[in-house]
């Protein structure tokens, strides 16, 4: 579904991604694991073309994304939830969802605000609250819900569990498993494999812009040496 090949990216003169290759198949959850600064967020931004890559290719459902604007990428069905969540603080919950709304996709039940309030009940209870006056966990739910309003075929989730209380993380994991069971493909990035372990099928380990390892999530969790080398701080 998503095929990233030899992706290169720069911030100014700093070379961040040195040939990242990865793939996500329909209906599966893949995880990008790595320490702070490994290039996880940059990979996601480069896929979305928010940071136009300087080399390599990204193909989504067979289509090369080269030369597309970010909004074109989103319209093809790539839904992006940034690490900082980037909720519109002066817009209400309902208005934030409206910004994300896109036409339904054939063969896919369209997301509506009502369906999302059912998935994230806490959002349903605060439809009129400005995004700026929500807790971190609520903002994360809203960021995911807002992106789902675009009826994506693949969700790019950048460090969704960061800074959230454990009980909120559990609720988030539950919601994501629900999405997975409906057949939504997800590429997730995490520093801490604990959260991802319950959701992801397989993982890529990223270090300083290079992919160092790829394997089933369970195998990564079982290999303490691997985790010590690429994840522990």
């Amino acid at each position, binding site marked *: 579904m998503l095929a990233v090949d030899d992706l290169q990216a720069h911030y*100014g003169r700093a070379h961040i991604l040195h040939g990242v290759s990865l793939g996500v198949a329909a209906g599966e959850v893949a995880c990008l694991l790595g320490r702070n600064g490994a290039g996880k967020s940059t990979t996601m931004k480069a896929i*979305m073309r*928010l940071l136009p890559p300087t080399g390599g290719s990204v193909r989504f459902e067979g289509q090369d994304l080269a030369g597309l*604007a*970010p*909004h074109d990428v*989103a*319209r093809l069905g790539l839904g*992006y939830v*940034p690490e900082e969540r*980037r909720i*519109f*603080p*002066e*817009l209400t919950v309902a*208005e*934030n969802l*409206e*910004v*994300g*709304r*896109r036409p339904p996709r054939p063969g896919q039940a369209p997301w509506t605000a009502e369906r999302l309030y059912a998935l994230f009940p806490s959002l349903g209870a605060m439809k009129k609250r400005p995004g700026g006056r929500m807790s971190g966990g609520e903002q994360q739910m809203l960021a995911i819900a*807002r*992106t789902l309003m*675009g009826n994506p075929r693949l969700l790019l989730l950048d460090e969704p569990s960061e800074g959230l209380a454990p009980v909120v993380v559990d609720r988030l994991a539950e919601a994501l498993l629900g999405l997975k069971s409906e057949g939504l493909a997800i590429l997730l990035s995490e520093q801490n494999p604990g959260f991802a372990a319950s959701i992801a099928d397989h993982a890529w380990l990223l270090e300083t812009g290079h992919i160092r390892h790829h394997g089933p999530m369970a195998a990564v969790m079982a290999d303490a040496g691997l985790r010590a080398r690429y994840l522990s701080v």
Partner: protein
Amino acid sequence: MLDWQGLVVQGLNGLASASSLFLVAAGLTVIFGVSRIVNFAHGSLYMLGAFLAWTLTAHGPFAELGGFLGFWGAILSAALIVAALGALVEMTVLRRLYHAPELFQLLATFALVLIVQDVALLLWGPDDKFGPRAPLLRGATVIFGARFPLYELFLIAVGPVVLGLLWLLLHRSRFGILLRAATHDREMVAALGVDQKLLFTGVFALGAGLAGLGGALQIPREAVTLHMDMAVIVEAFVVVVIGGLGSLGGAALAALIIGELHAFGILVFPRITLVLVFLVMAVVLVLRPQGLLGRGAETAPVAAPAPPLPGSLPPALRWAAIAAVAVLVAVAPFLGDYPLILLADFAVLVLFAASLHLIMGPGGMASFGHAAYFGAGAYAAALLFKHLAAPMEVGLIAAPFAAGLVGLLFGWFCVRLSGVYAAMLTLAFAQIAWSVSFQWVEVTGGDNGILGVWPSDWARGRLVFFYLSLALSAAGVVVLRRIIHAPFGLALRAQRDSPLRAEAIGLDGFFLRWIAFAVSAALAGLAGALFAYGKGSVFPSFLGIPRSVDGLLMVLLGGVQTLTGPIVGAIAYAGLQEQLARATDYWRLVLGLVILALVLFFPRGLAGAFARRAA
């Protein structure tokens, strides 16, 4: 003194002008909110709205229709045509500049101002136009025993109605919700699949339409003139800045304040009416830098890192500069009076632009009011001459000190702010200085200026005076170059590129900017004094907005990266203006098109373009 009925009527007058002002300011603030473009051409759109409404009520189908429908059809059509023009300008010009530095966007909208000026002159001629009065709203009503025009009453209602409609648009329509989202985070809106191009074109059409409507609604109450654009843009900027950039409620509140200030200021402080508005703006910005309802500190736009300073001029350029000066010195004795006057003017403008460059380039601040210091120097020389009969030598020495002191005073306020707010505060102070020179007739002679400010006998010949101007200008440029390359200049650039890091290594950013501001003012003052002696007189126009704009254009045209920029820019701009003015009546149009072409094709300025070709 007025009775209370008079006060009520005066208050209503204030409301009527507040309403018109709000229409223009609302468009300006909505455009800024989404696109981050400060649209100087907004006043031009207002003027076009007025001219178009005048034409449509006088000719064509609406004029034939006549009556109520004819009049309002013409007004609304004028607004719609201006909206379409706004969309066209966005699609053809501004869209290419969203990633360009802020100052280039300004330059492009300045160019549009020049172009619209001459297009209006071409289409409508220089005479003032008087529109028809509005059907059904011709008469007056009696309010507390005083007569009050119905049309003004109608205008009072227009403001709140438009505010309400805009609120509905922004909160109840998908387009409006997207606009508000984009005001906060454009990139995220794009990542959610929204094509920003449509959004930007839409917001420009909306803002332009509001300006056009504001202009069109003026035709029953005032003459349509070619000066409407500048008059209204300055007021609208004041309103938007006082209210807080991007805040619609703020614009409404500030329009109300400014409208009433005009109405009552004339009763209470007749002597300082022109200053009053700018005083209020200065006070607001000093106390609440983000404006009354503005949203806290703007996140500074990420500026592209400036290339390192060249250690010394490339030899070719250095020799070219020396050769140019040598040729000027050698050729001057063979020139007539007119070329010598022109060359002396060029020397003055080079110094003026180079002084402005110190704060805009290394300082990283924009000044929209640099003429204040040019004028301060000129007036210092002229007043010394008038009251103490001081000779030119004294005047030339005192002028930089006087202008430097004014710079210290104004700069202390201005350098605390950043970006557009700082630029607007410099404009406010310049307008205050201009108003003083214009309204304090006893001392400054007001509009009549101060005459007979001639050089000393030895320098009275055109040739000697040119040599003097060239020498002082060159000396000023050398001083500026040394300052930029001295540790002070490096520290100044450091605080521009990374305020936090500069602070962390112990650099006092405020102090550095303040001193740079004062030095820049002092050298502008020297240029002003030279200019005064060259012309033999001083007028309030020396401190006017057009002169500040000239300075800005010279620096931007040349490029802010190096000191060569403003020098090349000053000569190119002044030379072009001079040549064009002699060749055609429509020099503004040509100049505007040239500037537009430069902005679109040479985004680093003239000097930058040459440097790249050389490299």
